């Protein structure tokens, strides 16, 4: 038994309805697509990278409440962070969501992102929460092709 409120926290619903940093970023010098063929979710991530600093970030696309909220929260969390700081946030987020190892994540590093913790109890929804993050990873890895969570 799980509680649905664990998944759909108020902040998540808020971010899904009013996503932050939503829209196209004309000054972007890095873009990546994230696509989940299973549910048709699609996002495009735009980053203006300035000397290894994520100077501006936006996203566009369509998806479920979890994928939109996760993308929105992600843009807030990594804006004005360096590439290496962003990778550390990515790794901690992935650790929290997928629990692939016993290693714990660092709450302080994740900040607001921790409200997505409940997703880890919903295996069918983990891909929703990680869609934007995979697009981010492909930009950080300098591999800007369309990526898929399938």
């Amino acid at each position, binding site marked *: 038994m799980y509680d*649905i409120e664990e*998944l*759909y926290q108020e902040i998540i619903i808020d971010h899904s309805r009013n996503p932050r940093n939503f829209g196209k970023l004309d000054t972007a010098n890095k873009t990546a697509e994230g696509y989940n063929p299973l549910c*048709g979710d699609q996002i495009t991530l735009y980053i203006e990278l300035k000397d290894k600093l994520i100077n501006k970030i936006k996203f566009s696309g369509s998806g479920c*409440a*979890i994928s939109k909220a996760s993308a929105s929260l992600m843009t807030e969390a990594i804006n004005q962070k360096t590439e290496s700081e962003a990778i550390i946030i990515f790794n901690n987020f992935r650790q929290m969501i997928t629990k692939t190892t016993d290693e714990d994540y660092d709450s302080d590093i994740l900040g607001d992102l921790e409200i997505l913790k409940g997703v880890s109890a919903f295996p069918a929804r983990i891909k929703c929460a990680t869609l934007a993050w995979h697009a981010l990873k492909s930009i950080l890895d300098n591999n800007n092709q369309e990526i898929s969570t399938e």
Partner: protein
Amino acid sequence: MLDIKKIRNDFPILSREVNNKPLIYFDNAATSQKPISVINSLTEFYSKYNSNVHRGVHTLSMESTDLFEEARNRVAKFINSKNSESIIWTRNSTEGINLVSNSWGRKNIQPGDEILVTAMEHHSNLVPWQILADINKAKLVILPINNDGTLNLDEIDTFINSKTKIVSAVHMSNSLGTINPIQELCSKAHKVGAKFMLDGAQSVPHIPTDVADIDCDFLVFSGHKMLGPTGIGVLYVKPEILEEMDPFLTGGEMVLEVSYEKAKWNELPMKFEAGTPNIADAIALGEAIVYLENIGMQNIRNHEIELTEYALSKFKSLDKLTLFGPLDPLIRGGILSFHSEDIHPHDIGTFLDHEGIAIRTGHHCTMPLIRSLNIPATSRASFYIYNTKDEIDYFINTLGNAIRYFTDVK
């Protein structure tokens, strides 16, 4: 009227709970639940009769062969096939279509020929024909649909023409619920000398099917959607066509005589069943058919018309939802696909699951169709013999709660 209470008691899974709520299983278009007789058939086979078929002279082998062939006869009778040689075991509908496109298709489709499918086909009745058209340099033609989810037959005589060599159409759409006028498509195909293939994956479990009456050349369906186990399906082929077809998979069981240089094919239907077949599941599918026949296919259809009519009327109470497919329950199966502008299907699916309701969300393996509706995915509820109006009431009520949950500001 079906005795639903009695029927429900035959399905052990229906007494379990999901998230502390009684399970409401509305994902029957994906796979059906299994009655205890089918489950028992599997354990009984492995406990008493397990051995290979068509091979040994020992008692177990003869007994399992008898059971296996008896199941084939049951399938033949169930769809009114005059002979059981026309019944080929496959894994599922998908394998049946691939068998036909590879075996019949590669040999008979010439450059410039046309293959016609409808715009509402499952990927399994689309991709094999794309590949065949590509290899044999033929043209794949798509018959369009109307806004209400029915086939657009306005220019059917242009779509089915002298170049058309095969028409392959779904009987009941798994995404829209539409029941297509297959008799008309079949006779039009035959008029121009084309073959007609029927995808019965959604229809055979829910409406009476008579291959002699339809006069189709090929029919495929899956056991697991009609109370049987997964991994067993059926391909029906008209005998005169089957005689001319080359084998699809080759190896053991499908040969009569083999030398190091060449092989002579076994008689029908074994020619198309290479390797040890899925014996236990075929026999269990036979049990599923016994169960369906005891209830009566027309009774099942009537029950589902009643449920669909009821659900369609209840849907009207919900705002902000678009329902796809025709609104006349006589030309639609118990499949309700819907979408909300404001809520993604996955969020609806998770919310309903929390209340014990299992529905399907996604593109239902009909990506081109869902894209043509300009939506990313739909939510789909689909019914079967064990579903009730009470369950529909609870479902509609919960769906209303979901809409309020996701759209009202908390």
